[in-house]
Structures are given as C-alpha cells and as structure tokens.
C-alpha cells in the first residue's frame, strides 16, 4: 500500500498546482468532468493491470473497443433489443480476450505478438462489419449509461468505481488474484506448485477483453455512435495509466488502486492543460514527460528498496 502513496501524492500535488494556476480547476463541475473523462481509459486500465501483473501486455484493447462497439451496433441494427445487442458486444469483447489467452497459453506466442495480431484482426473486423461507417442512433434508455447520473454523480463514474472495487477485491482476496501475482512473479514456480497457469492466464486476457467491451458500450452510449475507428491508441494510454500507477512491467507487483490514481493523473493533466490553454503540441510533450518522470521516480524508488526494476 505504501507505494500508492507516492502516486497519490503526485496526483495531489498536480491538483494543488492546477488549483493555484487556474481558478477553473477546483470546481465541483470540473472535478466531476475530470473523473468522467478518465472513465474510458480507467476501465480498460483495470484489465491491463491484470495482464501486466502476469508480466504480459495487451496491445489489442483499443481495437477490441472498436469491434465490440460495432458488433453491438450491428446487432442493434439487425433488430435485436438494445440490451441484447449490448450483451452481444460484451460477448465479442470477451471472446477476443479469450482468443488472446488461447494464443498465448496454448499457442505459446509471446503476449506482444499475439495481441499485436489481435489488434489488427479486431480493427479490420470492425471495419468489415460496419463497412467503414459509424452506426448511430440508439435509444435514450441505453444512452443513460453514459449520460445519466445518480445524485449528481455521472453514471460512468459509478460504473468505473464499481469495477475498481470488484477488481481490488479479486486481486487481494481471491485465488484468481493470488495466482495472477504468482504467475507474474515467477511463472515457472507457479506452474511447479500446481497452479493451472494456462487457465488463469487465459482468464486474465478474457477480463481485459471484457472490460474493453464495457468501455466500448460506454463510448457508444456517449457518442450515440459505434465507430470502427474508435479506441485507436487507447492501449498506450491504458499502459501509461498502469505504469504511472506503479505496476511493474516485469509482473508480480502493483495494484488497481495505483492504476486508478494513474488514470486520474492522466485525466487531470489533460484537463489542466486544456483549462490553461496550453498549445496542443506542447500538451503531447507534457504528457510524455509526465509518463517518463513518473516511471523514472518509480524505478529509483525500487532500486533503493532493492526491488527488481523494469
């Protein structure tokens, strides 16, 4: 838990600096904005945390967002009720994730290669299925998922917090969580001690695919449109959130709490740069800089604590 305090302190300092820098930052409306804007990457980053904890990587999440969204749109246009269409989208995301898992565990492909392939397959699939065109026009009841709120708190924020709550519970209190860390810490040892590494690893990629699909539904609800070009580069934002949050790319150490803070740091930074009217070019430099500084600090910390470094 101590490690998250460093990340949390970073977030708080960022907030304090922005509070001084602009009067528009510390308002309820703006803070809700920031958290809501962090939900898409935030939810994907939960799945990415699981994957990275096993010392893997998932480059296909952004494309799975597009494919799941388009699958939902196609199902809806074909006449399915909207919630059945949404389930179709979730099923497609889960299937893509499990396919990643199978390629990695049964096919023995490195995760980088398997998910790189899936990234292209899912993107192409989304373009084929939609004929390259966005599929729009969904009922208001479905769009509530993104536009609704409960006592002023936007629905996507509640959904994200619930997902983080469940993920934290799974990682800290369940067999799946313990084995996720064990596989990332030392896969061979995990296998020798009788853990069904293949099944658990596949499950982890399945979770990443499923959460990409959840993000896809949120995005469709928000834009009222399923776009085959949605989610491009989301994988990199999600990896950045995980890494800023202190999870080791070597696997075996990290937490979703850190990832949540990491996702919020990215969201606050983007929001603050907009509020300050910083040039769009400089913004990209700034975000890259923060990622590097955060990881640099983390590595220094680990070296001094004699923990393995990335």
């Amino acid at each position, binding site marked *: 838990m101590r490690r998250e305090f460093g990340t949390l302190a970073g977030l708080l300092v960022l907030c304090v600096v922005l509070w001084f820098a602009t009067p528009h930052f510390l308002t309820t409306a703006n803070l809700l904005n920031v958290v809501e804007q962090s939900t898409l990457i935030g939810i994907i980053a939960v799945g990415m945390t699981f994957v990275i904890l096993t010392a893997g990587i998932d480059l296909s999440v952004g494309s799975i967002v597009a494919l799941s969204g388009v699958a939902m749109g196609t199902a809806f246009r074909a006449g399915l009720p909207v919630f059945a269409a949404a389930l179709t989208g979730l099923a497609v995301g889960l299937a893509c994730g499990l396919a990643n898992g199978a390629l990695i565990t049964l096919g023995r492909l490195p995760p980088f290669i398997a998910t790189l392939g899936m990234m292209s397959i899912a993107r192409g699939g989304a373009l084929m299925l939609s004929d*390259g065109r966005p599929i*729009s026009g969904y009922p208001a009841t479905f769009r509530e998922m993104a536009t609704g709120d409960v006592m002023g708190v936007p629905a996507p924020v509640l959904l994200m917090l619930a997902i983080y709550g469940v993920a934290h519970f799974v990682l800290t209190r369940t067999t799946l969580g313990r084995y996720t860390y064990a596989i990332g810490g030392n896969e061979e040892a995990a296998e020798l001690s009788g853990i069904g590494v293949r099944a658990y690893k596949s499950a982890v990629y399945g979770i990443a695919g499923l959460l990409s699909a959840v993000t896809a539904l949120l995005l469709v609800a928000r834009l009222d449109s399923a776009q085959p070009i949605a989610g491009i580069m989301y994988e990199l934002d999600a990896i950045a959130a995980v890494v800023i949050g202190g999870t080791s790319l070597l696997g075996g150490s990290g937490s979703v709490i850190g990832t949540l803070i990491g996702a919020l740091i990215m969201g606050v930074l983007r929001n603050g740069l907009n509020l300050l009217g910083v040039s769009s070019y400089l913004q990209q430099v700034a975000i890259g800089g923060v990622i590097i500084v955060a990881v640099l600090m*983390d590595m220094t910390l680990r070296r001094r604590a004699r923990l393995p470094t990335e």
Partner: protein
Amino acid sequence: MSVKRVRWVAVFVAGLSWACNRGDGAGDAPSVALVLKTLNSPFFIELEAGARQAADSLGIELVVQAPDREIDVERQMQIIENLLQTGIDVLTLTPSGSREIVSAIAEANQAGVPVVIVDTRADAQALAEAEATIATFIGSDNVDGGRIAGRFVAEALGGQGRVAVVEGIPGHETGDSRLRGFREVIAEHPGISIVASQTANWERDQAFNVTQNMLQSHSDLQAIFAANDMMALGAVEAIAAAGRTGDVLVVGFDALDEARQAIREGRMAATIAQHPRDMGRLAIESAWSILQGDTVPAEQPVGIELVTE
C-alpha cells in the same frame, strides 16, 4: 522517497504553467475558443492563422485546442467540456464527427455559450433530436467542390475513361460530400466508369499504398480523384514510383501549397481551392458579431474554385 517524486512533478507542472501564456481572469477581453479537428494538417493550421489574425485585430482572447488525432471525436468532446469550464464566451468548432459532436454542442447550449460551426457540418437531424442549436455555419459547399472536380476530370478525359477514387475517413461529412458531388457528375457521363474507390483515411502514406494497389489491379487507370490534397500527393508519389507520371491525372482538394507546386511541375492535374484562412477569419468575426448582439446569417458560404496552375 516519495517526497522526491512529488517534488519532481511539482517542478515540472510549475514550469509548465509558467511556460504557457495563460490569461484567465486577466481582463475584460472576450474569450473565444477555437476547437479544431487537428493541428497537424496544413488546412487547419491555415484556418487557425486566419482566426488568430482576426482575433488580434478585434482584441479577442483566442484559445485554440485540438485532439492529437483528427478522428478522435471523444477527445474533442472532452476538450470542449474542459473549455466550457473556463467561461469562454463563444465556441467556434470544426467537428471531428458530424453526428457524435452534437452532445457537446448541447452542453455548450446549456452553458449559454453560442456555437459557431466551421468547415464540417453538424448533423442537422441529430441537432434537432438533441434540441441543440448552432449560431451559424461557415464553410465551403463540398458537394459543389466535388462537382467541379468531376467536371474537370470528365472534360480532361473527353467523356471516356476509367477513374479511381481515394476516399477520406468514411462517415466524415466533408469527404462524403465531395465524393457525392464527384460521383454525381461522373454518373452523367456513361463513357466514364469509377473502377475503384477506397479509403486512405485522409492520410498521405495510406494513399500511397492504396494507389499502388489500384495501379496494380487497373493498369488502364486514367484519372484519380482524392478527397484531399494530402492523399492526392500520396497518389502522385505512387504514380511516380510506378513510372507513370503524366499517364494518370490526379485531382485533389484543398489547394495546399505543396499541391499547387505539384501542379506547376506537371505531376498533378488540378485541385479545388477552399479558403481556410477566410473560414478562420469569418468564424472570429461572427463570434464578435454575436457578442455585440448582432444577428449572423445561419449559413455563410466560403468560395470554392478550381486550380489548374
């Protein structure tokens, strides 16, 4: 040790906030936001330049922001939400998605911020459904631009020949309108057929590949229409790589300096000139009029013309 990380982040952000020229709460100058599709294409950089010039001469404080990627409508919506928090007086906007952007326009409406749409239309039906309103639309008639390109190609080929199309991102109103106008005119010439039509997502390197493939499968291709100049230039390079410069005439859209240069050198046949600088200027002038309480026309067309030299 976490103190050290904290210190680093603090130094970085403090430096950043010092480095940027912020003006919130600085005075009474009206503040206008210009949210573009992207700032990495010459068309939008020109548009920004026109807007900046007008803002400077009118004493308007102008904030310009754009997503990293042209297609990222979700990010564009976030930028608009963030800017609405800063109390901007008018929002000028080139939508990254005609339909998707509507909920952001509705948010601006709720905040009492008038919206000026530039270059790409917001979907009229979606606007009506969301009960969202815009103050004015400033832009060229892209359908007409497509027709001009179509007439040029038809005439150059003498009403006979095989033509290919390089499309922009599917579902983008500007690109779709250009192609609609082009196809409309070509359909009036039974001797001309469109043998291939593929997207290169507005990008030069993708257009290079797409054109290379088209030249492979259609060796008798006589003309290519690309929905913007970046893609037209990619096509020009692919044709040159195949050693067929001069055989296949290329028509683009936007009249970028580089395209004009290619036309002068005979590598490209024609392009359609829009006037992004005028669009930027008109956007800011309209914002100014709205702030003065004057009415602005619902539609403000910006001229469009053929460039062949």
